[in-house]
């Protein structure tokens, strides 16, 4: 991936460890560690099962999965920047996907309109969560937990009302193209694109946009400052209430996108969209070195974290590991990554770098 390391930490230089002489050794950077592990695993899996490098069977579906889970990770990352959590990621995605499906089903809208509806609905629910949090002062964990409960019931009620109870039967024009086609299907004369599914560029643009938001834009930097120290941010004249609502709205918007992309990948707007999102939403950012405390995020790390989980899942699948062994391994990987993080902290403290 071409873009620079999108680690952002306003006012706190230690995050730029790998580049500064007084910082940590390069190997203590969680993103480098992730990359090494990913490469090692790809080599291992390819050696054990050459079909791991099969374009149609493995690489294309893996990229499609990865696109969804990178976005899911970013949805969580958006509020982790504040030191908040969004436990309603699964259901925000589900409601957004429902809204898109309904648009196609009842209005016969083109694909793009449904996407826009999904994004808007997601952002609105996120903004609602943010508004409740800021006006009541209740912990984001509790608010989004309750919201998830509520939306869980709402989603099944909505599907029961609008469909046969499970999924929309509608297939908007272009959905199958987005699902099955890769860039390889589009040729300019003799030159065809790489075997990259069409959902990947959508995800890539989103990743870069979120990266730029947190690294370069004023809004993003102010979100991080709010996460770093609410008091200090407020005293510096940052409109913290608005930034909190915006971060939650961004999270909702990304949930909406993830729900839409998963529906495309699955080929149906169904009630089960998002069910599997909660764990990956935390897995990707945390593996990538984003802490729960807020104030610092790593967009590139989140993408790498999502990549690692996708590679592990696909590889173990090919090696015919069972679901249970897969889960155990992913849990162990998460714990190992966390221990690495601990090593990083100890090293930082030894070198006198105070966070």
């Amino acid at each position: 991936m071409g873009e620079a390391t999108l680690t952002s930490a306003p006012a706190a230089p230690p995050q730029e460890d790998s580049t500064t002489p007084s910082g940590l050794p390069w190997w203590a950077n969680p993103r480098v560690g992730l990359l090494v592990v990913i490469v090692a695993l790809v080599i291992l899996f390819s050696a054990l099962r050459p079909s791991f490098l099969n374009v149609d069977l493995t690489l294309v579906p893996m990229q499609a999965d990865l696109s969804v889970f990178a976005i899911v990770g970013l949805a969580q990352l958006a509020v982790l920047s504040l030191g908040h959590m969004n436990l309603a990621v699964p259901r925000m995605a589900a409601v957004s996907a429902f809204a898109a499906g309904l648009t196609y089903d009842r209005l016969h809208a083109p694909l793009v309109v449904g996407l826009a509806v999904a994004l808007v609905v997601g952002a609105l629910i996120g903004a609602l969560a943010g508004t409740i949090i800021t006006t009541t002062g209740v912990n984001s964990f509790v608010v989004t937990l309750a919201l998830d409960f509520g939306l869980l019931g709402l989603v099944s009620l909505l599907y029961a009302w609008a469909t046969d109870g499970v999924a929309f039967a509608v297939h908007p024009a272009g959905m199958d193209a987005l699902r099955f086609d890769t860039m390889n299907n589009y040729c300019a004369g003799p030159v065809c694109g790489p075997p990259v599914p069409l959902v990947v560029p959508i995800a890539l643009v989103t990743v870069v946009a979120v990266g730029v938001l947190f690294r370069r834009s004023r809004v993003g930097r102010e979100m991080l400052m709010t996460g770093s120290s609410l008091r200090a941010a407020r005293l510096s004249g940052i409109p913290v209430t608005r930034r909190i609502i915006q971060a939650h709205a961004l999270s909702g918007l990304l949930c909406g996108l993830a729900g839409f992309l998963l529906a495309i990948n699955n080929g149906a707007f169904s009630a089960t969209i998002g069910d599997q999102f909660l764990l990956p939403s935390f897995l990707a950012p945390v593996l990538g070195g984003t802490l729960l405390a807020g104030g610092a995020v790593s967009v590139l790390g989140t993408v790498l974290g999502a990549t690692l989980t996708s590679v592990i899942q696909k590889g173990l699948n090919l090696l015919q590991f069972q679901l249970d062994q897969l889960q155990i391994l992913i849990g162990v990987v998460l714990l190992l990554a966390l221990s690495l993080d601990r090593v990083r902290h100890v090293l930082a403290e030894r070198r006198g770098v105070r966070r």
Partner: protein
Amino acid sequence: MTSTTETAAVATQPRRSRLLGTEVILIAISVIAFVVLTVTTGGNLLQPGTIRAILQYLAVPLVIGLSQMVVLAVGQMNLSVGVLTGLSSVVAAGLMVDSGLSPWIAVPAALLVGAGVGLANGVLVVLTRINGFIVTLATMTIIAGLRYGVNGTGTYEGYSPGLVKLGRASVLGLPVVFLIALVVAIAVALYFRNTFSGRRLLASGGNPVAARLSGISNDRSLVVAHTISGLLAGIAGVLVLMLSGSVNASIGDDLLLPSFAAPIIGGVVLAGGVVSVLGTCLAAFVVRLVDVAQAQYNINPRWVDLVVGGVVLGAVLLSHGREGKDDS
């Protein structure tokens, strides 16, 4: 009966009164909801069979709520309570069915599994210094794998008829499983009220710095809290075993969210330092009444989650509304 409101010595007076207020409100809600349900269903609720069913299926949510409450007391969370309940019950069933062991061995084994995993959670939290939320998220996936690994998609049934019979038995009209849950609740309440260890947990949760300055090991508090939480999840696993008569790898999946709902509605704060056994029990009862209402009125079961979400949010907003903003 389990009326204990425990606040850490360091906590301020307003906190205590807020908690009492929550409990009073919850008692009022429970009574009103119960009366309304009774009247509108033509007294159906007062049939011995109905009451027994209500209390029977209150047992597991109650214990699992307490399991979450204990870690909330030290300002931690335990995402693994649900799957751990499942693992304990599947392990115990496996020991009885596959290994032919008696329940006298299998039940303690289930408790041991719970406490052991809880201990591991606590040690990991202390060693890695990572947020308990993330550590237990990781262990949750591992435990889910182990739970599935015991017997795959298979179902254990026909284990220890005595245990299942006990699960359906009643003493003085009260189901045995409910009485067990009640005893557990009283034990937890006494633990936080009367023991040094319990007071230390609350002190660590309320103000870790002050706790350390008074000679309390916060690390030990974390490990103890996680171990007790795991033990309670193990007890919940045994209750599931007694209640259902057959267990499989999906046990516990639907327990995680209720485990948070009960203590949060009951007025336990996430920041730690405050517990309310009575509040948690009452909240579990209120959530149970939502289920009962659904069954009595033949409402679409999908409404239950919606209502529970509303109740959680409403309860939290209500208690915060009286207290005013205190954090971000």
